């Protein structure tokens, strides 16, 4: 069955530290890949996407993600987090329809 896995339900990171959120997918072919962010009480905002080409993708708010076909992964990174990065992050894949992972909640401590 096709699936999207975000292994980390919850991550706590200090402000200024680096952040990496993991995403793995299980599909027969390379899907279209997305990361969305949901701030508390807000809707979903697209951070970045990968369709093809360069496997390192730059997004908004200083985020980047790297597609690794051999690992079926699309991990999200940020070199230095800000308190405003505290939110829920969703990895999603599209093959016919957009399917979301369970999300990773990021807490930023001072």
């Amino acid at each position, binding site marked *: 069955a096709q699936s999207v896995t975000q292994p980390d339900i919850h991550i706590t990171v200090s402000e200024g530290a680096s952040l990496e959120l993991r995403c793995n997918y299980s599909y027969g072919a390379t899907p279209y890949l997305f990361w969305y962010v949901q701030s508390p009480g807000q809707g979903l905002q697209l951070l970045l996407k990968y369709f093809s080409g360069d496997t390192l993708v730059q997004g908004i708010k200083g985020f980047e993600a790297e597609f690794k076909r051999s690992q079926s992964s699309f991990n999200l990174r940020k070199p230095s987090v800000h308190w405003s990065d505290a939110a829920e992050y969703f990895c999603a894949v*599209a093959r016919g329809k957009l399917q979301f992972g369970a999300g990773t909640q990021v807490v930023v401590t001072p």
Partner: protein
Amino acid sequence: DTAVSQTPKYLVTQMGNDKSIKCEQNLGHDTMYWYKQDSKKFLKIMFSYNNKELIINETVPNRFSPKSPDKAHLNLHINSLELGDSAVYFCASSSGGAAGNTIYFGEGSWLTVV
């Protein structure tokens, strides 16, 4: 201007009532969606419409009836509301289907059934 707008943002209602959530997009997209986010933040597609035609129906109870009067609008009507319907409902749109296109989401409608 908000690209995908949905109303109301918050809705508290009693079990058994019928309610509607409206959605409009001004992006010129031809595909619109409804997603449900449950209490554990899990997001799942409910419906997808392309040019007013239903193309995805993810085994949602018949009490949920989407209606698309034109390609810029996709409303969600819910009959006989149940406690389990409490969730956040997101409207979204894209130009073409989900594969290879970016889906833009509205701000969400927080539905609480008491």
